[in-house]
């Protein structure tokens, strides 16, 4: 390899197309005279449906069909519980259209299909649903009390799941503790708010019997499986395509939203393409959300600040249903000890049904909550013991020689014990302290206080188990005509830049330009083995699979080229799209090698002549392909990680709080992170920055507000505050690269990293700034101006 693109700051292949507006999202797919769907949604958080009268809607001009639960045949079921786990009892999932009861505002009750979306909405307003509203409780702590109104009559105290895990011997360690710090922390509900809301379009071809579905999903292969299974079609007759998708952040890995099944069903039944383009309000009331957890965490420590045991009890809000199982609280509970040695851990959680939009993973998936709990508790421990906040962390961080650090007894979301595989935690903390000027900050703070300014420093460490299995695959093929390399994998992109980083991996192996590697994802017709995009796993799992496939193709190319050039394989160098005899000008293009390895009867171009039967280079005295040989330069391989690989980092910031406006100004924000070997630092920084922006959303702005009847009252972008570019501060990013020992590329995931510690950093910084005013601590995010005022005013 004479050039190396792996590790280089290569521009994203996809950007020119997206920036020119040439992206092709579901709503851009041209369909022949499509019908449009709109939903009748519950206006009540919990109610019994007395009756549904759709007669007027059906009679409305332009309406093709109105579906209620009585008209959807095989789809009138509770949707699959996707991730079974024994901690759940009789898990409840949603029906595509409500039957008998509704469980949250926004739950679909009927679907109208009409000539356009305007007409569909007009007709939806004509569907007369008679509801009998039932009492609700949306407060998580009150929902588990005796006598609270139940979301599901089957589940006393609204408890959907109960799970306890233990590592080490916490009881014994707690008995030896010299100091106990105990705090309660809360993280509120947010939503992913992707720029493109969800969208589904479907077309059924009666001639071929094929159903094609364009779905803005993170998991097309799984969606295809469900469609085939529930609609009773052969898998091969169902094609699911995730075209360009405008952000997912986990909201689009959940399947199956009612529309994902109902739209294809309607397309098949009506014999016309049908599309459903979710609007922003529907995204707020119909697509999953995350974050609400309340933790009561205890740190049992020695007087030195060394934490010898941790106990955490928490409540997790799962919304009206639990289709995604306990993934989020399981990730939270197994990440709770963070980057710290803490050998004895007891963690227990209850998942609680609330009459709200169902909860499934959103970027971070329980880690922001766990990080908020442990990091706020460590700050409190430092305060109680009179230790510096950096020092208390130094005394507990896992040291370099202690990896891998196994937390036996804590099973992570992949069902395997937590094992922190590698890192330089102490170095990361030292880098942060240095870059932030932590040593001189106290003086700066003192000086500012003299001028009536309140400055604070905040910091928080995080770890992130990334790259979960079960597996992904990669298919790599050199095209014989152009010499371009086509790559397929089963997971999908929502803007991350997979097409660039996967191309970099392949380009190095085959000695071709990154632009000549074309990555196709998200089409079950192109590649249909694999899982989905989630858990910061694409680079780790698909990346390594593609790497292995590319290595196989490389070996084939070298062997074939050596044969063509009549030299030993060791003499072959792949570069500039050709195979060269090292140290000479003799070479043959990769396209020609690809052609020559494909025994031909017909010569369609000059290169092909060499591959035909009577060509001198085509030397064989048996079959053109020997047993076990395959034509062309092509390979498929799979990678299944042994377990999650743990990325980590530490963020710190300098903040100023204005006691008059209660505004929080971020003076500086520094991120030190380590995602193992980086394939493309520019893309890594994009991921980190995007995550930090969402982290600031969760720290200071974003909260889904419900009134006491369970109505979401800020389900729009005026009242649900996503930080604008003007609210996201400049961020200084420092990279550490400790290769993962667990996979050939040495990579760890980075997709979610940025968002994880921001809430803890901001709370730590605000608390530090306002300490002289004697205010209450900050243990609840997002932190609003009203909360700062209340803390300072003591109300």
């Amino acid at each position, binding site marked *: 390899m004479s050039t190396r693109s792996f590790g280089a700051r290569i521009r994203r292949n996809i950007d020119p197309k997206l920036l020119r507006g040439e992206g092709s999202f579901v709503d851009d797919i041209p369909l022949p005279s499509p019908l449009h769907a709109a939903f009748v949604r519950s206006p009540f958080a919990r109610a019994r449906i007395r009756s549904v009268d759709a007669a007027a809607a059906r009679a409305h001009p332009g309406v093709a069909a109105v579906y209620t639960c009585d008209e959807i045949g095989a789809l009138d079921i509770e949707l699959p519980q996707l991730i079974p786990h024994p901690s759940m009892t009789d898990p409840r999932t949603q029906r595509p259209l409500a039957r008998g009861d509704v469980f949250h505002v926004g739950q679909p009750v009927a679907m109208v299909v009409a000539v356009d979306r305007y007409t569909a909405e007009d007709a939806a307003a004509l569907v007369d649903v008679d509801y009998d509203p039932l009492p609700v409780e949306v407060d998580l702590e009150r929902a588990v009390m005796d006598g609270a109104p139940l979301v599901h009559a089957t589940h006393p105290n609204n408890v959907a799941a109960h799970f306890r895990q233990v590592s080490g011997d916490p009881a014994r360690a707690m008995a030896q503790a010299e100091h106990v710090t105990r705090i309660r922390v809360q993280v509120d509900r947010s939503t992913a708010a992707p720029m493109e809301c969800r969208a589904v379009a479907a077309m059924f071809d009666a001639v071929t019997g094929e159903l094609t579905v364009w779905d803005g999903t993170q998991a097309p292969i799984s969606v295809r499986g469900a469609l085939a299974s529930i609609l009773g079609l052969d898998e091969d007759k169902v094609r699911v395509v995730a075209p360009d998708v405008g952000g997912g952040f986990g909201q689009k890995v959940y399947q199956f939203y009612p529309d994902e099944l109902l739209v294809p069903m309607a397309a098949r039944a009506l014999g016309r393409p049908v599309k459903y383009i979710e609007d922003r309000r529907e995204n707020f009331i119909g697509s999953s959300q995350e974050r609400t957890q309340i933790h009561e965490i205890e740190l049992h420590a020695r007087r030195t600040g060394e934490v010898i045991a941790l106990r955490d009890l928490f409540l997790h809000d799962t919304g009206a249903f639990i289709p995604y199982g306990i993934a989020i609280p399981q990730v939270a509970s197994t990440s709770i000890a963070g980057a710290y040695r803490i050998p004895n851990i007891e963690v227990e959680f209850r998942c609680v049904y609330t009459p709200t939009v169902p909860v499934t993973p959103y970027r971070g998936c329980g880690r922001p909550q766990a990080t908020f709990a442990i990091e706020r508790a460590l700050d409190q421990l430092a305060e109680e013991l009179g230790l510096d906040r950096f020092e208390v962390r130094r005394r507990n961080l896992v040291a370099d020689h202690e990896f891998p650090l196994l937390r036996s007894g804590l099973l992570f979301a992949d069902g395997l014990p937590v094992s922190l595989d590698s890192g330089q935690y102490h170095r990361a903390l030292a880098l942060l302290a240095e870059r932030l000027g932590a040593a001189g900050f106290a003086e700066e703070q003192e000086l500012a206080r003299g001028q009536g300014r309140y400055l604070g420093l905040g910091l928080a460490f995080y770890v992130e188990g990334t790259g979960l299995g079960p597996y992904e695959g990669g298919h790599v093929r050199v095209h014989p005509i152009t010499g371009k390399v086509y790559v397929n994998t089963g997971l999908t992109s929502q803007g991350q830049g997979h097409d660039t980083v996967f191309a970099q991996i392949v380009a190095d192996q085959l000695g071709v330009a990154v632009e000549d590697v074309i990555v196709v994802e998200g089409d079950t017709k192109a590649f249909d083995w694999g899982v989905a995009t989630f858990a910061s796993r694409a680079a780790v799992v698909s990346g390594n699979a593609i790497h292995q496939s590319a290595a196989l193709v490389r070996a084939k190319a070298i062997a074939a080229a050596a044969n063509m050039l009549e030299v030993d394989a060791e003499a072959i160098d792949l570069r500039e799209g050709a195979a060269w005899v090292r140290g000479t000008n003799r070479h043959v293009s990769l396209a020609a090698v690809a052609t020559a390895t494909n025994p031909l009867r017909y010569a369609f171009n000059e290169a092909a002549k060499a591959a035909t039967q009577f060509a001198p280079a085509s030397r064989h005295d048996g079959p053109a392909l020997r047993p076990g040989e395959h034509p062309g330069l092509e390979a498929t391989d799979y990678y299944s990680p042994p377990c999650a690989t743990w990325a980590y980092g530490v963020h710190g910031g300098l903040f100023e709080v204005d006691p*008059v406006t209660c505004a929080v100004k971020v003076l500086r924000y520094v991120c030190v992170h380590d995602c193992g070997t980086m394939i493309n630092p520019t893309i890594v920084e994009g991921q980190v920055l995007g995550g930090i922006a969402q982290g600031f959303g969760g720290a200071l702005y974003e909260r889904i507000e419900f009134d006491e009847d369970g109505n979401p009252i800020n389900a*729009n972008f005026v009242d649900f505050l996503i930080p604008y570019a003007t609210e996201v501060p400049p961020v200084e990013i420092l990279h550490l690269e400790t290769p993962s020992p667990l996979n050939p590329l040495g990579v760890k995931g980075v997709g979610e990293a940025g968002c994880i510690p921001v809430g803890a950093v901001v709370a730590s910084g605000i608390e530090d700034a306002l300490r002289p005013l004697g205010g209450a601590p900050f243990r609840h995010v997002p932190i609003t101006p009203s909360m700062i*005022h209340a803390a300072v005013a003591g109300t």
Partner: protein
Amino acid sequence: MKPSLFEYAAPRKLDEAVALLAGDPSAMVLAGGQSLVPALNLRLAAPGRLVDIQHVEGLHALSVANGWISVGAMVRHRTLELSPEVQRANPLIRAAMAHVAHIPIRTRGTVVGSLCHADAAAEMPMLLVLMDGSVVAQGPQGRREIAADAFFQFHLTTARAPDEIVVEARFPVLPPGTGWAFEEFARRRGDYALAAVGALIRRRRGGPHAVALAACGIASRPVRLRLAEKILAENDFSEAALHAAAEAARDSVTAPDDAHATTAYRRHLLAGLLRRAVAAALSRAQ
């Protein structure tokens, strides 16, 4: 998120527009569309007819004459904000308008549209109240001028009759030597204010000084802070007077706790913004 069916009319003459508006009790006036179009899409508004006034002759003028800045109904925010003539006549306007939403919205939205929308937290209605400006409305019965204080009745409610079109807003030219200031806090740049205070101060030898203070975001409409004005006008801006004025202003907050702010915080914020606004206005007063 698609509007229900409506008829669309784009008249060229004002009397035509008034007749179209009067002809359908559910008709609404469309100018820049920055509030109305989202409301239509959310089906919060469902007019039978939209009377688009952007092609109506005579509504695009912006002029400064005889002590008044006259803003035609189709003058976009951005035009008023960037006018050098307006900046000379009343620099408070540009300072306040930096807080009105974002540049793309200011480029399309109109000043009069914002006044007629009458959001209780919006900046432009508060400016009109602060400056004792007025609007001119044209209806089937003719033309009338409505003083700012009478125009804003409640959140999203004005004294405009359903068959009237506000054709013009009038902001005064500031007298020479007037100190001015605008202080606002919103959670994000460009959002509606959690609270904002506008101040105009003209010192008079021997007092009482001319003091105007107004706030938005704190009640069901923009309000003048009369008691605070009086305290400051009569007490020569002493520290005690500033304190008393800020304390007095707290009581003007009648907005209940909502998703964005508690009443207690809004009171605290208003008092603080008032002190900052007065200090800034004093520094500019001659």
